[in-house]
């Protein structure tokens, strides 16, 4: 059981870092950006490429985050900004198009073969549960990233301006807050968090062009559970979802009911994600309802 909890925390970390970027973007531009998943994949590859230049992990990941943040700004300039007058549905569909373009782009540039990060990990035993130094690093990085984001949004003038923009765009503009510049900053942050999350995800599994399919559903389920525009909600959603998936896949239901061992096949991961999302949305507590950037 402890093992399931540990696995849940690690998986929730990867999902949460990616998910907060979607929530941040949604809170400001009011549409769900499906290309965000590709930013995560791209970020994984950028980190891999930077590692290939002999850079250490922290530096490589930082470079990847900056590059992916810039890519997100470019996509905003080329696609979303010109479409800003359209309805959210139209922008969401456009974001699918962007996602598909990135998908083939990544495969064309980096090739279809899976790549694995060369990390040496130590393994620790906690009772009968196993945790690796990589797991610990992933969780620690996630916590640090969340603290930084929180400080930025709640303790700085620019971050508060971003929350003001998400709260009421016209009113923000009438206070002298430049909407386009802050929107660009928001996209940078979203891209950077996607890159970090994608890197963490790839570290724990492996890097391949179709890893987006593994990320897509859990991330969007987490964001939806969290109410789309709430950062704290996205983190909570990631935790709920990860716990549901790991319990469903990790518990020996056979042993519970009879003497024969039986596990739910892991192909049902996405099904569990959807089921958890639907269940939580039907019964969700008040604080998980949508609001501004929280």
């Amino acid at each position: 059981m402890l093992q399931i909890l540990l696995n849940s925390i690690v998986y929730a970390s990867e999902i949460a870092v990616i998910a907060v970027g979607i929530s941040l973007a949604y809170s400001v531009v009011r549409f769900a950006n499906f290309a965000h998943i590709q930013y995560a994949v791209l970020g994984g590859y950028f980190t891999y490429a930077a590692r290939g230049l002999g850079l250490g992990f922290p530096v490589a990941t930082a470079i990847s985050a900056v590059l992916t943040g810039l890519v997100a700004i470019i996509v905003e300039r080329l696609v979303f900004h010109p479409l800003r007058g359209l309805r959210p549905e139209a922008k969401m569909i456009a974001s699918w198009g962007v996602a598909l373009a990135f998908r083939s782009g990544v495969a064309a540039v980096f090739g279809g073969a899976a790549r694995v990060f060369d990390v040496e990990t130590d393994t620790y035993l906690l009772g009968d549960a196993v945790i690796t130094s990589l797991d610990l690093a992933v969780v620690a990085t996630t916590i640090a990233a969340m603290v930084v984001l929180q400080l930025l949004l709640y303790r700085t003038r620019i971050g508060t301006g971003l929350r003001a923009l998400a709260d009421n765009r016209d009113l923000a503009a009438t206070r002298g807050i430049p909407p386009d510049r802050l929107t660009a900053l928001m996209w940078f942050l979203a891209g950077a968090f996607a890159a970090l999350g994608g890197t963490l995800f790839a570290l724990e599994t492996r890097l391949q062009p179709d890893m987006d399919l593994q990320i897509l559903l859990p991330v969007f389920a987490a964001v939806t559970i969290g109410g789309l525009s709430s950062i704290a909600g996205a983190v909570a959603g990631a935790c709920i979802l990860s716990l549901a998936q790991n319990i469903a896949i990790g518990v020996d239901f056979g042993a519970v009911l009879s003497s024969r061992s039986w596990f739910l096949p892991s192909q049902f991961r996405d099904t569990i994600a959807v089921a958890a999302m639907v269940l939580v949305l039907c019964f969700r507590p008040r604080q998980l309802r949508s609001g501004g950037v929280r």
Partner: protein
Amino acid sequence: MSVPPESRAAGAALRLDAVSAGYGPLVILDRLSMALRPDEILLVLGANGSGKSTLLKTVMGLTTITGGILHKDDVDITRWATHRRAAGGIGYVPQNNNVFAGLSVRDNLGMGAYLQPAKRAAAQEAVLDLFPRLRERLGATAGALSGGERRMLSIALTLMADPAVLLLDEPSSDLAPAMIDLVFAAIQRIRRERRIPVLLVEQNVARGLAIADRVVVLVRGSVAADMPAAAVQRDHLHALFLHGSVGAAPAIQAQRSVP
């Protein structure tokens, strides 16, 4: 259409020359000309839907301007983006959605001073002196404030930027009489202490006339009457609202408005 003499007055804080504006293809202001003189409270009256809020939004750059010129202190700001107008000294208290509901009162005030973070502390003391009630509510979320507190915050938030011109859209709406007294006393104090002109939209005619220097009446998106506040006769207001003039030939200006 000729430009009324008021509009040609040099040194106006704000001047609109034959401005047409609206929402996308929908034109609401129809070649509207008027000027706000330095140091006056100009009351804008008009029926519901006559375009009073649209006038203030147009000054703030929140509508589509399709014709005419808008000056602030003789600088053409017709094409300026909203945030630039704010930086240029135009303070605007909208009729609705005039606070950041999800932010704390303190953060709301901080956003008011977004452009001058260094002056924030002093500006905050000044607005809390004007609305002491807000001092106890600094940590509260703006969305949780009472209607009166929220109104005070919306004005305080705008004053944080130390504007050179103040646009107020129906500061008395939905308030209890005691709160209206407080808000109007605050408006007079703002004008006295800060010596800034105020463009005031107000449905409460008696209250508005009591503090205004001059009155313009909007009828279907144009200025139909422009007169000193003292010259307004209350029993003629109904006709003024409908036609912009009192007498037998009311229709000339009203008729050229778009249907």
